[in-house]
């Protein structure tokens, strides 16, 4: 049974890809092993500056694994081995010149499940700048907290209760808090691992708008299971399947004119 997923033209990004977008991150023949099991079989991908790259594919295809290589979150997993080259601004992130802690300050991450610290809203945002010594005194920190929350579209909802615990917010607010927390350390790239999978449609719409605004200042890589979402928020889409990167192209191209039949099958809902 095949259900044709029709994606209306209005859902496509209206904004034209203005100007030239430099390459922010590059992956060359990236292979990942969990013990003896190979999760990624040689990924080649270029991530462009100030654009949103969506990674789509069926469950277990390796898109989250790939995402977690980009800021070396896989380091924390026992038995995980990464081969190949991943570069940020031309520097190997697994090389000697880049430290994992420094890398994660430059490449922030938003997770699938909202995971605010069990601290106040203020402290959630202030934690990153504090450990990196970004703000030298209180006023500066207040400023960072405010702008981060404003950019994440949460300021008006929480400005009167910054001292209340972040865990008391609703799911959608918590996820925006996590985005604000990621923004607060001024990263260059933001990785999002299915940021809307635990949220309702209204909260999802909020986050999607936010992603669209954020790409003016940040490079964004988003993993999603929701193809409409990929179509709505991204300019580039990469389709992963069984540890391979099958196809990567402009989002419009992928959804209207996929070259590979596996991509065709997935976006039309034949499997996945």
């Amino acid at each position, binding site marked *: 049974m095949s259900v044709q997923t029709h994606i209306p033209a209005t859902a496509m990004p209206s904004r034209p890809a203005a100007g030239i977008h430099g390459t922010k991150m590059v992956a060359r023949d990236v292979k990942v092993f969990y013990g003896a099991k190979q999760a990624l079989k040689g990924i080649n991908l270029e991530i462009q500056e100030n654009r949103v790259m969506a990674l789509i594919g069926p469950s277990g295809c390796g898109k989250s694994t790939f995402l977690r290589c980009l*800021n070396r*979150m896989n380091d*924390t997993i*026992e038995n995980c081995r990464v081969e190949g080259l991943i570069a940020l601004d031309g520097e190997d992130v697994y090389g000697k010149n880049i430290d994992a*802690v*420094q890398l*994660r*300050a430059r490449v*922030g*991450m*938003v*997770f699938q*499940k909202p*995971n*605010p*610290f*069990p601290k106040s809203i203020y402290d959630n945002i202030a*934690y*990153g700048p504090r*450990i*990196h010594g970004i703000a030298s005194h209180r006023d500066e920190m207040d400023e960072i907290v405010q702008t981060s929350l404003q950019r994440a579209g949460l300021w008006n909802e929480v400005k009167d209760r910054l001292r209340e*615990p972040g*865990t008391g917010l609703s799911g959608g607010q918590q996820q925006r808090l*996590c985005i604000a*927390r*990621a923004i*607060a*350390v001024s990263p260059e790239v933001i990785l999002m691992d299915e940021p809307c999978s635990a949220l309702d449609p209204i909260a999802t719409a909020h986050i999607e708008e936010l992603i669209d605004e954020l790409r003016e200042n940040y490079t964004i890589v988003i993993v999603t299971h929701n193809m409409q979402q990929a179509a709505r928020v991204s300019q580039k889409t990469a389709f992963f399947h069984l540890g391979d990167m099958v196809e990567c192209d402009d989002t419009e191209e992928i959804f209207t004119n996929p070259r590979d039949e596996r991509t065709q099958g997935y976006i039309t809902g034949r499997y996945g």
Partner: protein
Amino acid sequence: MSVAVTKSRYQSEEFSARLRRRYAAERRFRIAGMVAVGIASLMLVVLLGSIVSKGYTAFWQAQIRLEVTLDKQQVEERNYTAIVRQALYAQVPAATDRATRRSLNDLLSSGAPYELEAMVNANPSLVGTTQTVWVRADDEIDQFMKGFIRRDVPESERRLNDVKIAAIDALVANGSIRSTFNTTLFTAGDSREPEQAGILGAVVGSALTLVVTMLLSVPIGIAAAVYLEEFAPKNRWTDLIEVNINNLAAVPSIIFGLLGLAVFLGFFGLPRSAPLVGGLVMALMTLPVIIIASRVALKAVPPSIREAALGVGASPLQTVTHHVLPLALPGILTGTIIGMARALGETAPLLMIGMVAFIVDIPGGLTDSATAIPVQIYMWADSPERAFTERTSAAILILLAFLILMNGLAVFLRKKFERRW
């Protein structure tokens, strides 16, 4: 066309019978559970009831009123025994002959003259005056007043002879015997005389021991748990260490006592009977408990918090100290306090390192000779005097009070620091 009325499988007689059996099984299980809880509660009530009923009398002590004349010459000769005795003879005018008076001498605690001396030393202006003082009665008088020595048994089988009983009756008649709260129990060290014996020496000994235990086992235990749980690679060596820690938690405490005897006393030559050594041994014993409890608490912290911290660029150590450890703290505290409570109630290892001695002085430092509450209970339980029986139970009550206090503290701290996410 006939339509067969087919009942669904779930409406059949067989299914109903099956359902009834399932409910019956559930009912039986509930009843068994309630019976188990009932038996456990009953045991607890019997245990506590027997201790309380035997021990509560120890919190009261009989005192005898004396009108002491602090004669200057006698005070200078420090002949307080004579002063006390003369006052007592005056209270019982019927006793005139030497034999009766000798019997009367046993009515007062042998500590009475010292009590008087301490009073005079504290306030020399009393010399030359007549003072009304209440002094402790001998433990046998105390037991008689509490009804533990019965007057209806023949004199030859009784601890108190007829002369003493007559004297007590005379004292009761003129209101010279009273029962007061037994402060000595809380302010004195051990003594051969029950009415002069107190638990303070043992309490201080236990406290000093626990301080050493805590200072050593808490930081070492938590650091070991954090390293093993958060930083150590998972390989054969760490598996081996984990198995050994779990085994150590199950080693009988007397073995730790023997280890302490051989290593701390034998090899390092530390002093015998000292809270320092007791604390070292208890620390060895408590370490595995704290490590295991802390590891469980650290494991319970959701990985998403670690990822969140690492994701904003916190170093692994910052992740642990800023986020994981504070969240695991309630569990760690609970485990620690339960480990400490276990150390407080432990006797066997202390027997091995000599903390079982009869020590009258209240220890003032970590290397002074000392004993501990459970050891004090053990020694009092071994004493023949009737009055030590009730003091044994009273000491158990005091130990239980400390244990309940510590466990209550554990619950309070857990509630206070517990955070939901």
